[in-house]
């Protein structure tokens, strides 16, 4: 039975707290990182919904929807006798450029709203980078329909490797026909890469297994 399904049938908190105590308790603060619109909040919502019956925040097709880091504490997972308690931190998308005109031209926002959003997005990027000092591991969400070697992915991976933080790469959006999860796997052979669709839940149990293996 799928892990997510198993959980939904149980009262998660108490049962997994007990499992953690019996099989070994681990706790980790896990940041969900990636470029804007990679699907970070969609994934965070799925994790939080599957393991705590809650949601993290709103997701949108407009970039920089998440402009403040959000944290959900004490998410309890278990897999093959291993217990893992997570604090999930959904971070704003990291970007090297933020142009309010993109919001106006591509998403038909009013100019003042677009400028406000751009300003908040710059603050969100700063917050996301600062969270790197305070996480124990990272789920790096990459859009499997885009170039894996974009500078944001490379910079985040570089910082993780330099800090020796464990990372799981979620190759997201594989429900889209133009996705190429194999490209991502080939691009980063030194890290676990799990092809998923955060929006449909496809292969999400594989991601949970990989998280427990790598973060506990």
């Amino acid at each position, binding site marked *: 039975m799928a892990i997510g399904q198993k959980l939904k049938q149980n009262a998660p908190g108490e049962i997994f707290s007990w499992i953690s105590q019996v099989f070994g308790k681990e706790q980790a603060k896990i940041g969900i990182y990636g470029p804007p619109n990679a699907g970070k909040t969609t994934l965070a919502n799925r994790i939080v919904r599957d393991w705590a019956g809650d949601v993290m925040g709103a997701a949108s097709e407009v970039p920089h929807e998440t402009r403040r880091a959000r944290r959900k504490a004490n998410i309890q997972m278990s897999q093959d006798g291993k217990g893992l308690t997570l604090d999930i931190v959904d971070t704003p998308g990291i970007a090297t*450029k933020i142009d309010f005109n993109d919001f106006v031209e591509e998403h038909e926002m009013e100019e003042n709203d677009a400028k406000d959003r751009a300003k908040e997005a710059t603050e969100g990027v700063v917050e996301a980078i600062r969270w790197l000092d305070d996480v124990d591991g990272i789920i790096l969400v990459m859009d499997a329909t885009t170039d894996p070697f974009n500078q944001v992915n490379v910079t985040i991976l570089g910082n993780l490797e330099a*800090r020796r933080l464990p990372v799981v790469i979620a190759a997201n959006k594989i429900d889209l026909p133009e996705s190429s999860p194999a490209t991502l796997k080939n691009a980063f052979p030194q890290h676990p890469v799990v092809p998923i669709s955060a929006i449909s839940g496809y292969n999400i149990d594989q991601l949970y297994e990989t998280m427990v293996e790598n973060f506990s």
Partner: protein
Amino acid sequence: MSENGVKINLVSKSMLDEMSLQEKIQFILTEVKQDVILVLEEGLEPDEEAKLIESTMFEIDPESFVGIEMESQREMEADSIIGKLFQRTPYGSRASMTVVGPADKLRTVYKDGNSIEAMVLEKQTAEANGAAA
């Protein structure tokens, strides 16, 4: 820039070595905000890249500066069999070269383990200069 065209500065390793992290970040941002594209002979460390992105966010101005385009080149792990076999790239190490420029003037076209191909948006530059003149 007052004249049409794009200025490209090749910055030597020795010059970069003399700078502290803060000086390096300040130097890069000052140049890039003046529409200069920099090719750093010694690339940035991952934490320097993160610091540069963070500092860039404080400089973004809706009317004049939208951010940076940056690409770093890191060499494959040539010393190990595993590195050669699996084309592993040590992302946690210093880049062998970094190209950084204003986001509205520079576009990365292609990048792999051996090269960075970038395009300078000359037309936009000329238009921007014309508008500013």
